[in-house]
């Protein structure tokens, strides 16, 4: 294997690999990337047995071949090369010579044959999607993904195609839930929903962020998802199991509905939560005629109180919430006003844009 490539291209490939490769693993080769030079260019593959990306780059290949190299160290090296071009050449025993300008590195690699094979792409029907829409859907659900590893079904986002070319994405950690429905036209040929794991979703977000307007394709085979954009393919294993019946926990319409100015609500919650007694950011929200009160108290510090003017004529109620669960939701919303719906002190609160439930967040209260 021998090729010459623009330093920036190699840097980009290795940068993409950083989030995937495993540093703590019983399989040392998983800390490496597979570099494969063919007549048409060079591919750099990163794989952790669950998520794999293959990044394609133009290069002058003088001798096809493949080798694996440490993703981390070679990235450090490539970032500090003196020249805009770099040459990689495989030597005996999987050593690799990396040369750029006056600098030479001789790096220990491992045999390409030992690198695990990515899941076969099989016959995933690929659907062209809007990168911007998928990015929005990820941003509006990811915060509700559970970080409790023992609840692995909830360690991802449920992706559920709907009738009429829409897709719903739902995340929940058992205390709160976030749902978004958007148009992603095309037939994914899925029987029901699938669960996309958090790590894969975060990598997908990173790749979409690189160029959200690029032509993107998404598809699903039996147990894996496939994402493609020019010069890049990503495969990931899906979480196997039954996502909870989320519809059951979304209240139809709350008894008490109040329109709240979003920014004031967000800022007020952040302010008042400063005085919350513990890290659950417990705040009390009170509704009275045309008033929304936010209070918190902390035995060591004192108490805090804020009032927002709102249009409200339902009955009085005081209910506790984790302020963070509310601010997580408000921070991703674009409308000036939000509709906040409550039942009683023990029933979930619901937030959505006025007259639009295509993004809906459900938050369970706290006992305060």
């Amino acid at each position, binding site marked *: 294997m021998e090729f010459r490539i623009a330093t920036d291209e190699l*840097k980009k490939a290795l940068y993409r690999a950083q989030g995937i490769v495993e540093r703590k693993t019983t399989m040392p080769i998983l800390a490496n990337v597979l570099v494969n030079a063919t007549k048409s260019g060079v591919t750099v593959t990163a794989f952790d047995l669950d998520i794999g990306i293959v990044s394609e780059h133009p290069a002058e290949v003088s001798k096809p071949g493949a080798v694996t190299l440490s993703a981390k160290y070679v990235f450090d090296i490539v*970032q500090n090369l003196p020249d805009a071009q770099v040459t990689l050449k495989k030597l005996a025993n999987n050593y690799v010579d990396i040369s750029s300008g006056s600098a030479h590195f001789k790096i220990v690699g491992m045999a390409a044959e030992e690198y*695990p*094979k990515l899941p076969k792409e099989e016959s995933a029907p690929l659907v062209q999607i809007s990168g911007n829409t998928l990015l929005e859907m990820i941003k509006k659900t990811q915060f509700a993904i559970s970080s409790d590893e023992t609840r692995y079904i909830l360690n991802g986002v449920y992706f559920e195609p709907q009738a009429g070319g829409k897709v719903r994405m739902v995340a929940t950690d058992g205390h709160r839930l976030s749902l978004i429905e958007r148009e992603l036209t095309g037939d994914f040929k899925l029987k029901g929903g699938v669960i996309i794991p958090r790590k894969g979703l975060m990598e997908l977000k990173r790749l979409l962020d690189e160029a959200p307007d690029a032509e993107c394709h998404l598809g699903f085979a039996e147990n894996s998802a496939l994402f493609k954009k020019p010069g890049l393919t990503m495969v990931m*294993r899906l979480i196997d199991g039954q996502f909870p019946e989320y519809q059951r926990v979304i209240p139809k319409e709350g008894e008490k509905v109040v329109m709240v100015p979003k920014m004031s609500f967000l800022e007020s919650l952040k302010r008042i939560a400063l005085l919350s*007694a513990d*890290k659950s950011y417990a705040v009390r929200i009170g509704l009275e005629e045309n008033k929304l009160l936010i209070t918190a108290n902390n035995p060591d510090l004192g108490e805090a109180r804020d009032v927002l003017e709102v249009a409200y004529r339902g009955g009085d109620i005081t209910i506790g919430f984790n302020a963070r669960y509310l601010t997580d939701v408000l921070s991703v919303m674009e409308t000036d006003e939000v509709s906040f719906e409550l039942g009683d002190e023990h029933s979930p609160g619901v937030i959505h844009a006025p007259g639009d439930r295509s993004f809906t967040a459900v938050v369970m209260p706290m006992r305060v």
Partner: protein
Amino acid sequence: MRKIVHIDMDAFYASVEQRDEPSLRGRPVVVAWRGQRSVVCAASYEARTFGVRSAMPAMRAERLCPHAVFLPPDFTRYRAVSRQVHEILARHTSLVEPLSLDEAYLDVTEPKSGLPSATEVARAIRRSIREELRLTASAGVAPNKFLAKIASDWRKPDGLFVIRPHQVMDFLAPLPVGRIPGVGKVMEGKLAAMGISTVGELRAVAAVELEQRFGSQGRRLHELAHGIDESPVQPERPVQSISAEDTFERDQPLEALGPTIRRLAERVWAAAAREPERIGRTVVLKLKTAEFKLLTRSHTPPTPPASAQELVSIALSLCGRVELPERTLYRLVGVGLGNFRDTAPARPQLKLFD
């Protein structure tokens, strides 16, 4: 070869209730909140003979065993007893990893009690729990955590079971694959479709094939089927600091670091939220220049940062305390939260579902 003990208290909450209230002894006791959506926290062995199990809906338990005594859980008391159990465990090793109030792993490769074998340690622990606390525990002894946990269940309740290194392969072979941690109904079904129902049959499948089909989980299955589990016993140490860092694709000037600092601070915040009983007071910004010079700046606000946004703004303001020349380029930036203290336990958060 490591020596691991898994200790599991028998019907813990229910046993504590029976111990403290003699009239409950010998009777079916179910610890659960009343209510439509509540689940059984614990069931005494008398209740289990009627099919009552923990985590089953309380309503169902009531139908199965209507004459059982239903008690609301009293976690303050269970926690106190749990501390006493841990005090007994700590006599033998400082390597104790609590799994819950009633379960723990111990690494007794070199017990500080000086007992000659892990089996002796397990016996001593069971004896102390019985004599000092008037409760029973089951114990499993094995070369790793995965096997020790299976072993403690083998002679439950009030039992002790030892799996010696040379017995591992024979012991595992006939077990149904469902006994392997992480193998649920779905995985069981998939393995059954491959003609695999026992651990011995699983062992016969090549590692590469399992990896191809099941990814990292397949790799783990292969190891467990061979009795291999390297996961260490991790003593619970209160978190002291949490940090996140990122290396740039291209070195960046200070004024371009904002978005990355924001993202890292949010990540740190999310990780800190997983430690509800600890609170970090000091915000740290770490920078590495293109020339590999490392610098850190920190700030401890009068009240600990209370939101991701606050952490972000403190971290950003720390950039103002970097006195390097403006043209300096940075290759890495990190955000940390340190100087953690205990805080009041979180208030009860209601659940959408269990």
